[in-house]
């Protein structure tokens, strides 16, 4: 018997990793010290590790192509997988703090790559604390889309500073987003939805997308349907609250 056949964490029928073997806590403290390697600067991010088929040799093989989508707190990676086929030419990465969940997404991507040769080569995942290390991964204006889907609500006021959308962290997101880049947020917690919306509304470098623009954007539909959390909310007949904003150049804000 070969190794894979007895490995119970891989489903026999689909070849994909089974989620129940990658259960993790729903919450992780983003304030605690990190014990994983972090690239010193964006130029040190090894693309050949993440996208081996597109970047066969390590080092700066093709500096023209860079990661453009970041799914912050990607969870089990549902959105990434959907985006991967929708934007096959775009490099995208999921960032997740929980190591077991990251392992699952890694397995999921590699299984998909084996099952569908030539596909899913543009998607990867990294275990990191995006609240601390976003500037270590992306250069100024590198990203065109950022996703914050069903983030931890951190209800207690004492813990509000752990929220992934906060006035000060938006400064850093505005830094890595290109002019016109879009930030997508969605949650099933009304209080958090209001918070994320007001944070974005009050920030001088973001403006809301109009109804028409939301309608025309194919990605908006994925927010609630593609992720595992979104499907769970839909199953239970819950409500979702989304806020989609565009990165703009502030008007006479800075000198």
């Amino acid at each position, binding site marked *: 018997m070969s190794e894979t056949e007895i490995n119970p964490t891989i489903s026999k029928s689909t070849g994909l990793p089974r989620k129940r*073997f990658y*259960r*993790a806590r729903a919450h992780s403290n983003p304030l605690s010290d990190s014990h994983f390697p972090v690239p010193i*600067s964006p130029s040190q991010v090894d693309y050949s590790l993440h996208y081996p088929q597109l970047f066969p040799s390590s080092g700066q093989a093709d500096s023209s192509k860079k990661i453009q989508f970041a799914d912050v707190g990607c969870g089990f990676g549902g959105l990434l997988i959907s985006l991967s086929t929708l934007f096959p030419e775009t490099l995208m990465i999921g960032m997740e703090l929980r190591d077991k969940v990251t392992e699952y997404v890694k397995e999921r991507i590699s299984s998909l790559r084996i099952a569908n040769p030539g596909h899913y080569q543009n998607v990867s995942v990294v275990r990191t604390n995006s609240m601390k290390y976003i*500037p270590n991964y992306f250069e100024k204006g590198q990203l065109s889309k950022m996703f914050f889907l069903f983030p931890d609500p951190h209800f207690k006021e004492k813990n509000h500073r752990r929220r992934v959308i906060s006035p000060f962290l938006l*400064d850093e997101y*505005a830094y890595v987003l290109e002019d016109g880049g879009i930030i997508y947020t969605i949650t099933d917690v009304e209080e958090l939805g209001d918070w994320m919306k007001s944070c974005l509304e009050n920030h*001088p470098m973001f403006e809301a997308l109009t109804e028409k623009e939301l309608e025309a954007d194919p990605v908006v539909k994925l927010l609630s349907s593609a992720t595992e959390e979104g499907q769970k909310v839909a199953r239970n007949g819950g409500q979702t609250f989304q806020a989609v904003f565009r990165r703009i150049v502030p008007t006479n804000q*800075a000198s």
Partner: protein
Amino acid sequence: MESEPKKETEVAPALIAVHPDQSSVAVAVAVGPHLRVFDLAAGSAASLIDDSDAVPFHKDNIRAVRFAANGKLFVSAGDDKTVKVWSTQSWRCITTVSSEKRVTAVAISNDGTFVCFADKFGLVWVVDLDPPLLDKKPAPLLSHYCSIITSLEFSPDGRFILSADRDFKIRVTNFPNKPLNGAHQIQSFCLGHTEFVSCLAFVKSSQECPQGLLVSGSGDSTVRLWDITSGALLDTCEVAIKAGLLESNGKAEEHGHAVTDLWTVRDGLLVAVAIQSLHGIVLLNCNVSSQTLSVAKVVSVAGEAFVPTCLGSSSSTGNLWMVTGVSSLPGSNNPSLARVRVISGIDGKQESVVLEDESIPGGKKLLETLQGTASVDDNAFLAAAEAVKAAMYNLLIKKQYPSENREYRKKSRNDRKLKS
């Protein structure tokens, strides 16, 4: 045993600030909660006046002191969660700002209208000094997520505020016209240090480079040169190795050669560097056109185990002021130790010489004021050097838990299921 490390963190290194004016009208030394100022023009100690008549003016260790670029203001702040702004003419405290957390760094905008300070949460606050009121409310300016800020600095042209943290980051942020609404536009991140960044200084602007170049010192024993507009690393100088303190291959003692302070002289063409185990300073040449750093020489202090904890100088007197010392030295009768030394001829016009006590500007009187005593017991130096090292260590280095410990904790987690 448990209380021991706690105590060490409360040891604060001595700080020095020199008035930027040519005539060097005042030198201030802070050791522990004590703030001592010597007026060089008058040749006597300046008496500080604070209307809240609290003595000492700070209730806990002072962590940051600095003169404004125009010399009109002086700011002191620290663990007592207050920021005091002093007029350097009258040495009266014109504003006391309360902080929610302990203060780790301060900066004054080049025109002297805004005081910025960083707290233990990694938040930077800004206070508008116009109009000057006794009690001012600070507004949040920017934040480093969950990392203590070690140094704040304005760029020479005043367009940017720079913040360095104990992770490894240096952030360059546009300083807006209305800073009370926050500074949201990040210009760049200067990334390259592998340990905490302890100090920042500017090589003043020139024709080729109107922003000026940035130099930074770090726990990784290097001094690095940066272009702040792009965040590009221009040069790295491994000062500890170059100064012969460290073998290039072996690491004798971790963090033993951290760069503790930097000061630029001659508009930054020379950079004075204090290293944690060096009895003296290293002088670096900064070549602006080739954008490189190189070691010019090592100036040693003979006769004493003098490891400077803080450096300062005025724009062009050619004197570099150094202080070493700590507050509440463990196991000593002296409540605190401060020792001031001066290197003259730093501007390169003459040979650099470490001045004897008699020939220091202000003489014995200055030393009595700033040190608290004219002569310092030799034994105190070694104890002080050790205490400073421990204090720095606790302040800047994150606790490392061995991987076995973390693995053990993971094993005992009840959510962990089969994984083979």
